């Protein structure tokens, strides 16, 4: 009973909304819009659980004086300050909340992504050795695309930016399309398994 009711809900709602897509009526559209709105409301308490879990993790770390416990104070302080500012001052452009986003969160995020360039390049140096014809194709393709995107590429050979663009638009797209077919079939199969109750890991326990 504890697991059959949730499974039945998934089956009924899964079939209902899969069919809803093919029913072009105002009622059907209203059902879809209402469900999206309800889904947002349902998920709000889930956020509370996520925050509770994170706070507990850091509080335990501080209490037990685990390695790096001082950083947990930074984490908790930052979360509390940002939340308090967001609640009290609003989230409008130019306010303290959005300034913290623009001058603290956004720069740190883009810098984290930027340093990935160094790690990707060093990983590529180790992985992209032309040991086989396929690896050579991979190397050449990356090389042409990278050179085509910078002014030096055009200075070396005028046709390089065009070749780079063509490689992105034609052979790259063909392979991506083949992979996308696989993603589509895989995700459809997984969704069907969930709707039909064959995939039950979300129920927890040993299911």
């Amino acid at each position: 009973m504890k697991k059959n009711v949730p499974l039945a809900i998934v089956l009924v709602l899964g079939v209902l909304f899969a069919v809803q897509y093919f029913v072009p009526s105002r009622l059907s559209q209203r059902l879809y819009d209402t469900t999206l709105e309800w889904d947002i409301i349902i998920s709000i308490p889930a956020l509370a659980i996520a925050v509770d879990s994170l706070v507990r993790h850091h509080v335990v770390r501080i209490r037990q004086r685990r390695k790096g416990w001082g950083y947990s104070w930074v984490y908790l302080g930052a979360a509390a300050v940002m939340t308090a500012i967001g609640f009290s001052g609003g989230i409008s452009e130019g306010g303290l909340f959005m300034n913290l986003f623009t001058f603290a969160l956004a720069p740190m995020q883009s810098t984290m992504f930027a340093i990935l360039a160094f790690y990707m390049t060093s990983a590529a140096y180790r992985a992209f050795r032309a040991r086989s014809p396929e690896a050579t194709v991979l190397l050449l393709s990356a090389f042409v695309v990278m050179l085509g995107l910078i002014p030096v590429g055009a200075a070396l050979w005028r046709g390089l930016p065009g070749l780079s663009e063509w490689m992105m638009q034609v052979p790259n797209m063909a392979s991506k399309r083949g992979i996308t077919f696989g993603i589509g079939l895989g995700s459809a199969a997984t969704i069907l398994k969930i709707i039909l109750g064959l995939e039950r890991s979300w129920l927890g326990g040993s299911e």
Partner: protein
Amino acid sequence: MTTNPWVWLAAILTLCIYTYLYKDNPFYKFAEHLFTGLAVGFTIALTWHNAVQPLIIQGIFRAHDWVLLVPLGLGLLFLARFVPKVGYLMLIPIAISLGASSGIGLPRSLEAHIVKQMQGTLLTPAMLQHPFDPYNGLVVGLLVLAGVVCTISYFFFSREHTGALRVSSRIGIWFVMIGFGASFGYTVMARLSLFISRMQFLMTDWIHIIK
């Protein structure tokens, strides 16, 4: 150098993150924890202003749309996890979200990943007008069609790759390698442009070396 404290904050935090290039260190760890903390606070405040206020406070308590109490009640069942005896009740809101999103996602996923991709791969009479056009011509259309079929055949593991399947899968792996190489190159350049923009920020907005 700038006197704007916000620019100073952004510059110092940027440098804190860059210190990781040397090795993991207290400056990076500080910035990392500050980042995750601010991100959590940002998400909570955004959820409050974009979901709780308009849907719950405005919808239920001001517009008296009492029907919204139903999803709110269902959502509150998530909190049943804190009471072990009725912990299983949290499966109800999960089932509703999962069921609805699965049903909504199934036809849309099939359309986006299968139908639209098939449409894009089809050869059209318009391709005959300029058969050697490098992007929309018939020759390129045939090349894309061959690439898609061969790539799929490479990932077809229900039969041993012998005979015609071996040939097509061998061609497929070449297309896959070109695709992965191109994606890699494109991603590296995107990351490099981010790096350049951060350096530009430090040199231009912070220390005013570049004007």
